[in-house]
Each structure stands twice: as C-alpha cells, then as structure tokens.
C-alpha cells in the first residue's frame, strides 16, 4: 500500500476543470467536503454538473450563509444538477425558471443505486421505484422492463470525473470513517469517479481505524484534504 498525497483544499479545487462532472457526498451538507467546495466557489470556475442528494442549504445549522454546494448554485457555477431534492435551496428553482440550470430529479434510492452501479461495473439498475411516475421521462431512465410479471425501470449507471467525500477520520492510506449521518452517499461515490478526493476533519495515523470498521477503503481514494473540524 502507498500513502496518498495530502493536498490543500485550494489545490484540490485547482485540480477540477471548468465543466467537470462532480459527485458531492453529503445530505444537506452533512458529510460534505465543505472546505474544497468553498475553494471551488472562490475559484469562479463554472459549467459544472453536480451529482448530489440535494444542493445543500441556503443557511447552515449555525446560521452559516450558503452552506456547502449551495454556494456553487448561488454563484451560477452549475449548469446541470442530478439530485433527489432541491427544496432547501430555492435558487435552484429560480435558475431553472430562468433557463440557466437543468435539474434531473431522481428517487433517493435510485440515485444511490445508480452511483453504486457506476462504481461496480453494472450495466444499469432495475428498480420498481418510479414506475408510473415522471421518472419514466428522466434522461437517467433507459426504459421499462417486465421481469417475472413485475415492471421495473432500467436506470443508467452514474459515473463522474470527480467525487468529493466529506469524511470524519481519514488515514494516510486514504481509509475513511464517517461519523453519524455523514456516511450517506459518500460510500458509493467513492467508487464511481475517476478522481476521488477525501476531505476529512481528522487526519489519523494509519492503523487508527480498525480493519473491520473502514467505511471507504483507501484503494478508492486518490487525494486527501484536511478540512475544518466541527
């Protein structure tokens, strides 16, 4: 095994080009790589496609303004969003109405499963969820199939150029552990992008995370960023 480069949030943001497709772990920014996202917001780069459960929050838990990837929306740095819910960031709806943003909404379980499929080399996901709904018209839906008398949607695997993980502990080999509800989409996203950057609150010596309790394996992580402790 080899150590993974530890870089700054600014270096991480610099690595991401205009127009990149970026997966961001996190649910309302809990478990989000917020330091990297902040630098990405400061970079002014745009044209991003964001894949995330939601677009984070206009207001953080302690009143922070534009918490997590909500900043990227606010700065008009995003051209397309794949998410399950954007209700906590009203600017998303505004930008859609203005015609500057495309939003593809898909069910939460389908988003998790499509990302997992993208990382696990599967051809698609056959889920009963979304049958008979607008999801059938989603660009992420490849059609309907009947198996054993039951209808399923065939959903497309999702893969990205970058995945930004919001982890709690990370060791020098890139092994990660998530506290509480931080885990959410990070685990699948870590498998489904060309370049995976793990931001952590605590950079730990190798061996601190028990071999049985690793949530994201170092082999999936390319770079490590030490972020802010909360």
């Amino acid at each position, binding site marked *: 095994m080899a150590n993974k480069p530890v870089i700054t949030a600014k270096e991480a943001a610099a690595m991401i080009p205009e127009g990149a497709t970026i997966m961001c772990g996190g649910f309302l920014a*809990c478990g989000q790589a917020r330091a990297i996202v902040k630098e990405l917001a400061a970079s002014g780069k745009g044209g991003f496609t964001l894949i995330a459960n939601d677009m984070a929050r206009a207001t953080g838990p302690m009143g922070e303004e534009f918490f997590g990837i909500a900043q990227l929306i606010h700065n008009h740095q995003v051209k397309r969003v794949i998410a399950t819910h*954007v209700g906590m960031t009203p600017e*998303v709806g505004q930008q859609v109405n203005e015609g500057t943003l495309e939003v593809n909404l898909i069910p939460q*379980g389908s988003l998790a*499963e499509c990302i997992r499929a993208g990382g696990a080399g599967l051809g698609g996901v056959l889920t009963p969820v979304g049958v008979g*709904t607008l999801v059938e018209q989603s660009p992420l839906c490849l059609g309907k199939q009947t198996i054993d008398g039951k209808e399923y949607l065939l959903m497309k695997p999702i893969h990205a150029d970058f995945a930004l993980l919001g982890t709690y502990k990370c060791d020098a080999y890139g092994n990660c552990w998530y506290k509480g*509800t931080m*885990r*959410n989409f990070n685990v*699948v996203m870590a498998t489904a992008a060309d370049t995976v950057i793990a931001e952590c609150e605590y950079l730990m010596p190798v061996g601190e995370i028990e071999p049985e309790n690793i949530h994201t394996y170092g082999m999936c992580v390319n770079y490590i960023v030490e972020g802010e402790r909360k």
Partner: protein
Amino acid sequence: MEKSEIKGFIAKRCAKELKDGDVVNLGIGLPTMIPDYLPEGVHLLIHAELGIVGAGVAPKSADTNFDPYHVIDAGGGPCSVAFGGGFIDSAMNFGLIRGGHVDACFLGALEVDAEGNLANWIIPGKKMPGMGGAMDLCVGARKCIVCMEHTAKGNPKILEKCRLPLTAAHCVNTIITEMCVFQVTDKGLVMTEINPEFTVDDVKAATAAPFTVAADCKSMLD
C-alpha cells in the same frame, strides 16, 4: 372535532397500526406525532432516510449528543441515534427500504385515489422540490399508510383518479383521516372504520371517489 384536535386524532389512530418492534418511516408533519400515541410496550425502530436505523429524539443544543454537523435528520435539524440503533449508508439504507424491510411508512398526500395511487411530491408550476426518498418508501415499505386531513380547504383529496404527478402507482394500502379509515382493495376503497362524529353521507360528500362500506365497519374510537 376541533381543528386543533384533528392531527392528534389521526396520529392516535395511526399508532394502532403498529406493534412492538416494527420498523417504520414517518414522513414530515403529522406522522411524526405518531410515537406520542403508542400503546404501552410498543417500541418502534424509526428508520430515517438520511441514514439512521433506529433514530432517537432531536437533541437540544445543551444535550451532550447535540451534533448538528454530524447527526441530522432529513429536514436538516439535529437528530440522534437511539440506544442500539445504527448509522447506515444510502445504498444499503434504500436497499432495505425497497427490499421490504420497513414494515410501514406513514405519509401525507396532496391526492390519493381509489387505485391506491399517491401524489404528494410536486405541483407543476409551483416551487421545485424533489421526491427525496418518498417514491422508494411508497413502493418499498410493506404497508404504505396515508394519514391526512380528509379535505384541503373543503376540497376532496381522495379522488377517483389522481390528477397530479404520482409519487407511486398502486402503493397505498390504507388511508386514515379524521373522518374514517379506508382500505385500498382490488375492488376500490372500502371504509372499515368511521369516526362516529360523521355519517357515511358526510364521508361521501367529502370524498371524490366511490367507496363501499365494510359489513363490519367499526367506530374509529373503538
């Protein structure tokens, strides 16, 4: 019934659907009141989309488990894990939902119809929300129970056929309102309980779908 009593009345009736050890998901609003009405000895495992299998109560800022940056609920508020509960990633979590490991989900509706179709996630032209985990829950939970006020501003919400975009088709098992309890069957809605404050005709007037009355239709108060 006083307007202020309606939600509690519905939540109390919903609580009767549950038995000790059930795994349940509670939608926002009224469903979150259900645990307040559980019979003695009935302990639920509250399943939260955000990644908690066995969610606890929301801690206050002075509590030792207050951790709004690491443990939150789907509304973004501080949350906690119950003793013996666990945290889970989204793929495993929704695998359990779709796989029928959640005994019941309780949620509100904008519209619900005689075929068990449910619409509760979007009103075209209004603000852009998202289905979140609602579609998965409606399809995956063993029982999908709609709990809501029978009408909205006097207009029926129980229809012959939903007009709004669906959350899921043929998913609803039971509808619980302040007026009655409907079971959704192959032959349409069957009223199995009625609030004695109302007559069958009252229910008919407030319902835009045909329904039959079960031979053994009971009082909701029993």
